[in-house]
């Protein structure tokens, strides 16, 4: 009985989404592609293909401790940079149904404070680098847009699944040792760990966005919840120094990703038809999750971060939009804060026949 009701409701919803004629469907492709930022819906239009890519530089020079106090990572000896290249595609299957797929490639090297042991006739200097490199999970998304039929109010509900299609286990470390006979015997020990970005487990995301447009302004609210969908397994590399050579062994351990709540508020001001200024505040709260990497099952510390951003979007041509933003973390607990400079381009195309025919 329940499945019949669900089946009928699903058919009714599909019928509304397919047959509903929104104001956008009366417009021609040129008008849709050159829509001002404050006139756009949250999703792309029916038949619209959007390809987004760019470059994001993050300067990891700040950390928030458990009390929320700021620690200067440069002074602490562990500042780092992350280079990220995002890639994301969105397609409007219907005016109210959007498909998306995305993946990021990134690289970062996080150093630790040196340890310098000074004895009477020997010195040992130890440095450590944790490199993170590679592709993260492949993300697929589906976003439903409520058929309000108004350009002023828009509401979407979306679900994403982030799949671990690439290997997430760390590569064998590449530690090194060098010894020199100076006034004392000087030994440089360099620990070089090679980690990856993939989570190793599928992650489910459920979220919603609300947008309110006026002729000059837009306000966008977004919130989502993500959680690991199963327990994961990875490896820990251990090393022994035997006669000036490192020998490596690996140990398996299990972990479970915690849950995460992300939220964002964005205000956009359309200064000129082709230029919009965007102010945003976004936050992340993560909690739960555990790992037995130490041999005992230990829960992760909860983390939270609030950051503010200022950016702009330029409509350079019918098909090309350029956007750029700078994000600064201003509050948090138990987490790193990065200054992020994001430069992106968005290529947009609409199949006129698909837009009108379907």
């Amino acid at each position, binding site marked *: 009985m329940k499945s019949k009701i669900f089946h009928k409701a699903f058919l009714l919803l599909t019928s509304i989404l397919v047959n509903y004629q929104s104001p956008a469907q009366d417009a021609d492709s040129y008008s849709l592609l050159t829509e001002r930022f404050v006139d756009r819906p949250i999703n792309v239009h029916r038949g619209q293909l959007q390809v987004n890519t760019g470059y994001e530089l993050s300067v990891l020079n700040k950390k928030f401790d458990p009390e929320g106090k700021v620690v200067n990572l440069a002074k602490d000896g562990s500042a780092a940079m992350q280079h990220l290249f995002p890639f994301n595609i969105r397609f409007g299957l219907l005016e109210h149904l959007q498909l998306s797929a995305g993946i990021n490639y990134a690289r970062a090297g996080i150093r630790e404070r040196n340890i310098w042991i*000074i004895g009477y006739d020997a010195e040992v200097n130890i440095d450590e680098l944790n490199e993170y490199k590679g592709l993260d999970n492949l993300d697929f998304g589906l976003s439903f847009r409520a058929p309000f039929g108004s350009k002023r109010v828009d509401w979407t509900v979306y679900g994403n699944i982030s799949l671990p299609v690439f290997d997430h286990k760390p590569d064998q470390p590449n530690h090194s040792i060098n010894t020199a006979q100076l006034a004392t015997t000087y030994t440089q020990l360099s620990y070089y760990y090679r980690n990856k970005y993939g989570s190793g487990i599928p992650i489910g995301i459920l979220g919603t966005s609300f947008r309110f447009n006026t002729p000059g302004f837009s306000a966008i609210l977004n919130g989502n919840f993500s959680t690991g969908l199963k327990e994961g397994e990875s490896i820990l590399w251990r090393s022994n120094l035997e006669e000036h050579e490192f020998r490596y062994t690996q140990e398996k351990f299990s972990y479970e990703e915690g849950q995460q709540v992300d939220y964002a508020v964005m205000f956009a001001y359309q200064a000129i038809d082709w230029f919009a200024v965007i102010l945003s505040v976004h936050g992340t709260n993560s909690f739960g999750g555990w790992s037995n990497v130490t041999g005992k099952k230990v829960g992760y510390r909860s983390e939270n971060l609030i950051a503010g951003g200022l950016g702009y979007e330029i409509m350079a041509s019918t098909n090309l939009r350029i956007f750029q933003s700078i994000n600064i973390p201003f509050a948090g607990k138990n987490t790193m804060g990065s200054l992020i400079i994001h430069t992106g381009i968005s290529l947009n195309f609409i199949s006129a026949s698909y837009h009108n025919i379907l």
Partner: protein
Amino acid sequence: MKKIWFQICLLIMTGSISGQIEEMIIPSDLKQQTVITEPATLRKGFFRIGTINSYGTVDRIFDESGKRTYIMGSNGWATAWTHEADLSYGITDRLQVSAQLPYERKKTFFSSEIILPGFDTSQIHSVNSKGNGIGDISVAASYQILKEEDRKPSLLAKIFLTLPTGRKNPTNVVNSRDFNMPTGNGETTIDFRLQFRKIFYPYSVTVYTSYLYHFKAKKIFNPGEEEISFRSGDMVYFGSSYNVHLNDWIALLNEVACYKWFDDKFYGSTTYDQGITGRWGICYQPALVFQVRRFRFFEVIQFPLKGKFISADPVYTLGLQYTL
């Protein structure tokens, strides 16, 4: 007879019409030309002022085998800002002079936990070295040997002279890590550049080569050392850029440059001399240039792609110029 007069009148009218078109190209319009459409040098009497700001860090290098790798052995973290005042003036339609006045802001951080087992003690030691001040000032002259015509490219010759006006030696030395860093290189250089450019509106293509010559100079490389003579290795550049107008006022520039960097020579003893030889590099440099009336805003990211014994970190540059 009437017909002849009528034809003469028509000819005169046509002449006056073309004259009116000439009149329409007024200097204020010419000052709004984009990086793609403007001539290779500033027109006579045009004056361009601006500021150029670059940001970079020291994190990775291309090692001896050309592999991009992290700088190991230390947790040192360095950042550098350069703020430049940029001035250019067109003496004639073919000859331009320019000057760059830089201000440097450098920071280096080191942090170590020093453990002394003999004394059963340990302490955290953090050092933050800075280098703020005027950098090395440059002056340049550019001359259009060939002016661009319908079928011919322009050919530009440029001489770029850099003078050692910045502080060349470390000051306020406390120890080998705690001191005020130099803000100049302490050497005079001359860069000679030849550049071809052809406009195929909305595109343009540039091909160039340059040779950077370093004069012999003297400075202290590391705190605690004596001043020694040295001559930095010269550099040969080959580069090309493919530029396109995304619309009437935004241009995307794509430049690829490769360079060979000859070996440095040291006439004395310094730990800076690591015996590095055979340096070379290839960089990709995309730039977005926005032309809003007489204002020009540009943004450049330089990505080192390949190389040997050179920095592998990107450099961000932001600039704003105005043509008077």
